[in-house]
C-alpha cells in the first residue's frame, strides 16, 4: 500500500549512510508482511498463513547478509558512508 511505496522511495534515494537504506529495506519487508497477513486474515484462508511466516524467514536471512556486507565495508573503511564505495572510479 502506501507504506510500501514510501519505503521503496527510501531505499532508492541515498544519503550518507548505507545502513539507512538497509533500514528502508526492512520497512519494505514489514509492509509486505502486514499486507499479506491482513489479506489472509480477511478472507479466512487459513492455509495462506504460511506465507507471512515464510516471508519473515527469508527476510531475516537477507537482512543478515546485508548487515554482513555493511560490516565488511565498515571494517575496511572505518565508517559506512556511500562515497567509500569508489573502487570502480573512471
Amino acid at each position: 500500500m502506501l507504506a510500501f511505496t514510501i519505503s521503496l522511495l527510501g531505499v532508492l534515494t541515498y544519503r550518507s549512510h548505507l545502513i539507512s537504506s538497509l533500514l528502508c529495506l526492512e520497512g519494505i519487508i514489514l509492509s509486505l508482511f502486514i499486507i499479506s497477513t491482513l489479506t489472509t486474515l480477511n478472507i479466512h484462508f487459513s492455509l495462506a498463513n504460511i506465507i507471512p511466516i515464510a516471508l519473515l524467514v527469508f527476510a531475516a536471512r537477507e537482512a543478515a547478509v546485508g548487515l554482513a556486507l555493511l560490516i565488511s565495508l565498515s571494517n575496511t573503511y572505518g565508517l559506512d558512508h556511500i562515497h567509500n564505495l569508489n573502487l570502480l572510479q573512471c
Partner: protein
Amino acid sequence: MTYVLFTLSVLLVMGFVGFSSKPSPIYGGLALIVSGVVGCMIILNYGGAYLGLVMFLIYLGGMMVVFGYTAAMAIEEYPETWGSGFEVFGCFLVGLMMEVGLVLWVLEFDEVVVVVSLNDMGNWVVFEGEGLELVRGDSIGAGALYDYGRWLVVVAGWTLFVGVYIVIEITRGN
C-alpha cells in the same frame, strides 16, 4: 470502533515516513520499532493473535536487536536527528503533509482513486465468521507449515544454513 483501524493505519504511514526521511540509523531504527508496534496492533485488531505475536518476537525482538548493535558499531559520533539540518526535517515534513492531505481527502469524499482506490471505511471492516470457533484460524494455518509445507521447511532450513555460511565468509574478509 472502526475508526481505530483507520487511525492506526495513518500512524503506520507516519512512522514509515519517519524512517524513510533518513535520519541517522539509530533514530531510523527507533521509527522502525514504532512502526512495527503499530503494525502489530493492526494485525491484532484483525484477529490474528498468533501472527502478531510472531511479529513481535521475531521481527522486533530478533532483527531489531541485531540492527541496533550493528548500527552502534558502524556510525559516527554526532548522529543527526529529525530536528537538525534542513534535509531530514524537510523530507519528514513533506511526507507528513502529504499524509495529512490524503487523510483529509478521504474523509471529505468517500473514495480516493489515484492508482489504488482507498475507500473510506470499507477496507477496514473484517468479515467475521459466524459463531464461536474452537480452533483459532491463524495458528492452525501456520501449523500447517509442518504438514503441507514440509518441503518449504526443508528449503528454508537449508537456506538459513547457507546464509550463515555466507555471512561468515563475508565477514572473514581478505
